């Protein structure tokens, strides 16, 4: 089934086409949301919202771009809005604690199982540290870095999703890599000291 057939089928509100869209693109949307939220339940909730929004606004979709690009864009926006509305305090406090905050505070991430950085296994600590370092980036750097490193999108694809020039995307990823490295390095330096 081609993308055009899929779109036309959904626009005429035929169930099998919408079901096909959800099945075909669920891995893409779910993993993108999870890359931002680091929590399966939240990622699934946002994935549902992404597909509902896609269904309701498909008539606005410009057929010259790929469906996947358009779905990435909705997934990124929905995830960022979710962080802004629901997890803002949680994530910011986690970043502060991890990168030089007061030691009496406990590390909190979207995953309620990860309570205290000190108690985390080495591998888990690294994952949390990486996620927090990325979450602490300015919004555009975070999106570009996440799509590049976690979702393995090419620079050209990121350009389409973010609707930015190639030079801007390159610049964002370059700065994001440096900032993430600095954050991680600073965390380990404090541990060594």
């Amino acid at each position: 089934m081609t993308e055009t057939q899929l779109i036309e089928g959904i626009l005429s509100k035929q169930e099998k086409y919408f079901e096909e869209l959800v099945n075909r693109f669920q891995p893409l949307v779910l993993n993108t949301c999870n890359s931002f939220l680091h929590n399966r339940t939240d990622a699934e909730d946002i994935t549902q919202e992404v597909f509902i929004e896609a269904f309701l606004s498909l008539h606005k979709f410009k057929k010259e771009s790929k469906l996947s690009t358009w779905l990435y864009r909705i997934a990124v926006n929905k995830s960022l809005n979710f962080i802004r509305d629901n997890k803002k305090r949680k994530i910011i406090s986690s970043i502060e604690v991890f990168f030089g905050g007061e030691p009496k505070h406990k590390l909190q991430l979207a995953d309620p199982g990860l309570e205290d950085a000190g108690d985390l296994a080495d591998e888990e600590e690294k994952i949390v540290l990486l996620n927090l370092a990325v979450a602490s980036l300015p919004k555009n750097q975070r999106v570009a870095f996440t799509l590049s490193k976690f979702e393995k999108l090419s620079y050209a694809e990121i350009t389409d999703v973010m609707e930015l020039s190639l030079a801007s995307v390159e610049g964002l990823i370059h700065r994001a890599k440096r900032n993430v490295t600095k954050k991680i390095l600073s965390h380990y330096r404090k541990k060594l000291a």
Partner: protein
Amino acid sequence: MNCRDARNSMIFCSTEKMKKPEYDQFLEHLSSCSQCAQLYQQLDSTLSLADNRELVQPNPFLYTRIREKLDNIGQGVSKNAGLPSYQRILRPILLTLGLLIGLYGGNRLGNFYDAKQQEQLTTALTTEFFINDMEMEKLEVQLLNDQ
């Protein structure tokens, strides 16, 4: 190269490839400074996790949930929606016609029923029954007679 330069090189490494003399100095420092070597190893193993992320497996029930939500906001999809309008109108008409043809056909079949033949058959059965009945009586009479 001192520790500060080594850390700057680690940051530089994240985006660019280090050139020959500087890279050799960096490696030399790592071999002589255990703290920087440990730092570099931790940094490298943490950053490499970005390239090997575990994928979340799809949820097979996700579509059903989305469908429910769409129904709740009155934006459902349908199995028949999207059929051409002539098909949407024709479908119930054809169904009704099929039903009427079925009823008419059933009625016609019923009219083939031959009343006379059925009467003869019934009579034959009744007669046989009586004959049989008579035979039974005969046997009883015989038994009575035997006593």
